[in-house]
């Protein structure tokens, strides 16, 4: 991303954050005022996370942390900052352009390198699967598959490029730390090659840098792993803890990424558990009288609230295509329903995304845009909340995993 300006800048609405029903204290969540959330600041299981624009200084409403990757079994390591913390995906992905280590390549049974194409909505990540030890805070996972993002080492096949536009070059981050609900990025679907053309294959083997890559099946253990699930302790999930954003926008905000749920004195479960569909990771949201069933998710890697609405959009040729640009701040409410039968109201506000041009603020609590057919609770949802992400199959307390809790 070469554009010097970040996409969105915020409203000038003094006292805005105090204007809706959750009150000024910072809390927010199911109905009524709640006290400000407590941010855990110390512990071997606590990593610092910041909403600060990221390494390129142009990324609003995105949270970044630091990870250390090592050649497996050695002390040859590299510490990399500017890693996007993403509850919407699973697995560690690092830009090859920032990686100075030479990591061992994962190979298919015939000896060819394994390369992955992982689609996101705004593009796909492409590059080889390599092995690394991963350390975050004092937590360690040994010899796990990660993805190294590179357009040039292998040729992305048409079956990959037809899924969207490549996003490697303009991530606005040095990598992505996927700490979502799943232990692997793909799951059992990828254990065999899907033979129907309508069914996408994320994993390939590539005989050479110029060869046409072929789809390959990957066992669960071979797939790119959520590093958290492989920590020796505190592996059943994470908590993202951010304070509320004062006045609706701040230059930056710092919080904590806490590993484990109910495994230490600093990570007890609190809040309401919203069980997720174990296949999709989604739950349900009712908004404006319409139920979006199994179409709602909590994604720190989305930089706004995204949902269907008739709120005026900023315009396709504006600097914020797809974002909302109401003439005055809209105070809204939606109800989330977990697959376990829980429900709770979320109050949120949407301000004019374009009114903000020129601001140096990267933490924007009222940023939102359109999404047809579902509800994407992006980073603004995390402000003033402790959000729990319980990973599938890892035995977190509080009910059936995977789940969200807040």
């Amino acid at each position, binding site marked *: *991303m*070469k*554009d010097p300006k*970040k*996409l969105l800048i915020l409203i000038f609405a003094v006292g805005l954050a105090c204007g809706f029903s959750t009150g000024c204290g910072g809390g927010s969540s199911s109905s009524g005022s709640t006290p400000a959330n407590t941010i855990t600041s110390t512990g071997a299981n606590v990593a610092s996370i910041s909403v600060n624009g990221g390494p*390129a200084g*142009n*990324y609003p*409403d*995105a949270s970044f942390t630091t990870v250390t990757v090592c050649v497996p079994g050695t002390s040859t390591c590299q510490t990399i900052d500017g890693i996007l913390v*993403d509850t*919407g*995906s699973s697995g560690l992905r690092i830009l090859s352009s920032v990686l100075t280590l030479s990591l061992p390549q994962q190979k298919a049974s015939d000896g060819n390198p394994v390369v992955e194409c*992982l*689609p*996101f*909505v*705004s*593009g796909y990540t492409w590059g080889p699967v390599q092995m690394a030890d991963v350390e975050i805070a004092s937590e360690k996972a040994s010899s796990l598959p990660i993805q190294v993002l590179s357009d040039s080492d292998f040729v992305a096949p*048409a079956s990959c490029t*037809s*899924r*969207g*536009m490549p996003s490697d070059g*303009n991530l606005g981050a040095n990598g992505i730390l996927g700490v979502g609900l*799943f232990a692997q*990025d793909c*799951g059992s*679907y990828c254990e065999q090659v*899907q*033979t*129907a*053309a*309508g*069914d*996408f294959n994320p994993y390939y083997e590539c005989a050479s840098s110029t060869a046409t890559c072929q789809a390959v099946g990957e066992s669960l253990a071979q797939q790119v792993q959520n590093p958290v699930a492989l920590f020796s302790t505190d592996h059943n999930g994470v908590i993202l803890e951010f304070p509320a954003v004062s006045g609706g926008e701040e230059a930056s905000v710092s919080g904590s990424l806490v590993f484990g749920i109910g495994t230490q004195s600093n990570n007890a479960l609190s809040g309401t558990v919203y069980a997720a569909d174990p296949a*999709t*990771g*989604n739950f349900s949201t009712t908004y404006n009288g319409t139920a979006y069933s199994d*179409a709602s998710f909590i*994604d720190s*890697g*989305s*930089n*706004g609230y*995204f949902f269907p609405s008739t709120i005026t*959009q900023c315009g*396709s040729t504006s*600097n*914020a*295509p*797809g974002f909302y640009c109401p003439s005055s701040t809209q105070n809204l409410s939606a109800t989330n329903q977990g697959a376990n039968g829980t429900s709770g109201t979320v109050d949120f506000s949407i301000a004019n995304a374009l009114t903000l041009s020129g601001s140096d603020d990267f933490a924007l609590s009222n940023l939102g*845009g*359109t*999404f*047809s*057919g*579902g509800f*994407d609770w*992006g980073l603004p949802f995390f402000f003033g909340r402790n959000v729990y992400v319980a990973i599938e199959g890892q035995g977190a307390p509080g009910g059936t995993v995977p789940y969200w809790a807040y």
Partner: protein
Amino acid sequence: MYALFAVASSAHPALAALGGDVASVQADQLHMRGTLRTTAATSYSVHEIQSPAGAVVREYVSFAGKVFAITWQGRWPPDMRQLLGNYFDQYAQAAKAQGRVGTGRRPLEIEQPGLVVQMGGHPRSFRGRAYVPDLLPSGVAAEAIQ
């Protein structure tokens, strides 16, 4: 309101996709190796193709025989080149241009006079739709495309 009027699983080769004729539905079905179910509304029919692994594509065909809209839902985004056909290049250019406007991961929203493409979700769950406003049968609102 839709009325189920046909269930078919045969496939005929043809060209593809958005803006194409009804034969392109079969091309997509063949491409996806999916099963096809067709329902009818007052001024168009909906052809739903389901892949072996559960990806669903719905193609909206006007009584004039044109595919004017497509929706999809599944673990991964669909083959956009196949589904958008002649509109793929326009989509790709618009997506690329939008990527240059600002940094950030967010649902895809391309709204041009001749083409609308929207997609959201995350790995293991994507949904979206594409339509050509000029091809919508009269009286059909974009909201009908679900």
